[in-house]
């Protein structure tokens, strides 16, 4: 299996390190031709405005949309915003997932936090019992999921922080900043 990580801006190296730990071939994607031969794609955390602008300037928007029709794609934080249909603001979006997001929904950096999440699907697929320790950095929330999109995880107050739409995945938090590879394993099960 060969997984691409969109390497326009953000913490793509952290995702690649996680995939390598799972013995998966991982490559950086900066231009449309880099999508060839991939089984799945991760869009990392970073600044969604930066990623959207450069994806537009280098002709990646349409190729990414087409890739997402047939292959597994996972967006973390900025990546989740980029995959959404609606970010309540005018910026380039892939419209891949039928979700509406709100950027910086928890506040500014001083409000960034860590919390344990209970994610039944993740436990089931990986055969584990532990909660998932999640890191939220100026994180968005998923305001609403529509159509085929389903809620995967919420924080204690009920706000949605992870969603899945068949082979597409969006998380407000950053599994790549932890030592827990379970979310990456879960994504690989969708790419298989």
């Amino acid at each position: 299996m060969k997984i691409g990580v969109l390497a326009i801006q953000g913490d793509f190296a952290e995702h690649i390190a996680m995939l390598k730990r799972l013995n998966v071939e991982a490559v950086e994607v900066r231009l449309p031709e880099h999508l060839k031969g991939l089984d799945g794609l991760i869009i990392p955390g970073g600044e969604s405005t930066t990623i959207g602008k450069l994806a537009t300037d280098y002709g990646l928007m349409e190729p990414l949309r087409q890739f997402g029709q047939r292959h597994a794609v996972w967006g973390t934080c900025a990546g989740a915003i980029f995959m959404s249909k609606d970010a309540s603001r005018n910026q380039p979006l892939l419209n891949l997932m039928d979700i509406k997001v709100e950027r910086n929904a928890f506040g500014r950096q001083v409000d960034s936090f860590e919390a344990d999440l209970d994610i039944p699907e993740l436990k089931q697929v990986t055969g584990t019992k532990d909660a998932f320790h999640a890191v939220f950095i100026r994180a968005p929330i998923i305001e609403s999921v529509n159509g085929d999109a389903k809620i995967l995880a919420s924080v204690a107050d009920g706000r949605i922080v992870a969603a899945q739409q068949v082979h597409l995945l969006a998380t407000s938090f950053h599994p790549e900043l932890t030592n827990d590879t379970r979310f990456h394993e879960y994504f690989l099960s969708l790419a298989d």
Partner: protein
Amino acid sequence: MEQQTGTFAVKKGLAQMLKGGVIMDVVTPEHAKIAEDAGACAVMALERVPADIRAQGGVARMSDPELILRIMDAVTIPVMAKCRIGHFVEAQILEAIGVDYIDESEVLTPADEANHINKHLFKVPFVCGCRNLGEALRRIGEGAAMIRTKGEAGTGDVVEAVRHARTVLGDIRRLTTMADEELMAFAKELGAPYELVKETKELGRMPVVNFAAGGVATPADAALMMQLGVDGVFVGSGIFKSGDPAKRAAAIVKAVTHYQDASILAEVSKNLGEPMVGRNVSQMPEAEKIAGRGW
């Protein structure tokens, strides 16, 4: 399920989100919009860019909180602001208004000539400058969650940025080849905390994100720093002291993403208009250099 804020993981984590990006100095909300539209991953809110601080002289202090707040309102990307070295009350004020990162910066006039701020006491993360690995690890020891090599701010001359990046990255390369029993002596030589020296060896890199700063003025300068091995680039006076800031800003952003692709670098380097008027650091009197500030 309790939520913990202000942990080192979330402080360091924001810097990880900035990787592969360009952080631009801005002095007005309009500049901040231009920077955001050009693809900046964050802005540094200031009253004067370093080139003007140099030209005007006098004591350089934290910017007016009102200006910083107006810049925070203008953009959705993270906003950083500078406080003086050792001036922990300026830092408290910046934390109170909610900036996303504080730069304890040698570009401002130092408030303490022996000590830096105890950055562990804050929820807001700090970035600090360095010229070598020892200085970087001392700052991390004090709680910095991000490092930038200093270069020589406000000159448009990349030579010091290269010197400092080569020194830091060279120190790390040397460290990774050392035997474990040599680490204490190396920690002593660097003047750095032993545990952080050990951690750096194990990771094979700086324990936090490391950007380049101080003298980057062109897309080629930015890509040069990336190819040397830094995680991203600060551009201070280089953008808004140039002929066409919006175009140059966008070109530098592209150069940082495509830093290994010479044909893209050639394309983005075309027709950028006048670069900032530089000052040769080699012809500058020692007293005018600011990289030596920091202990």
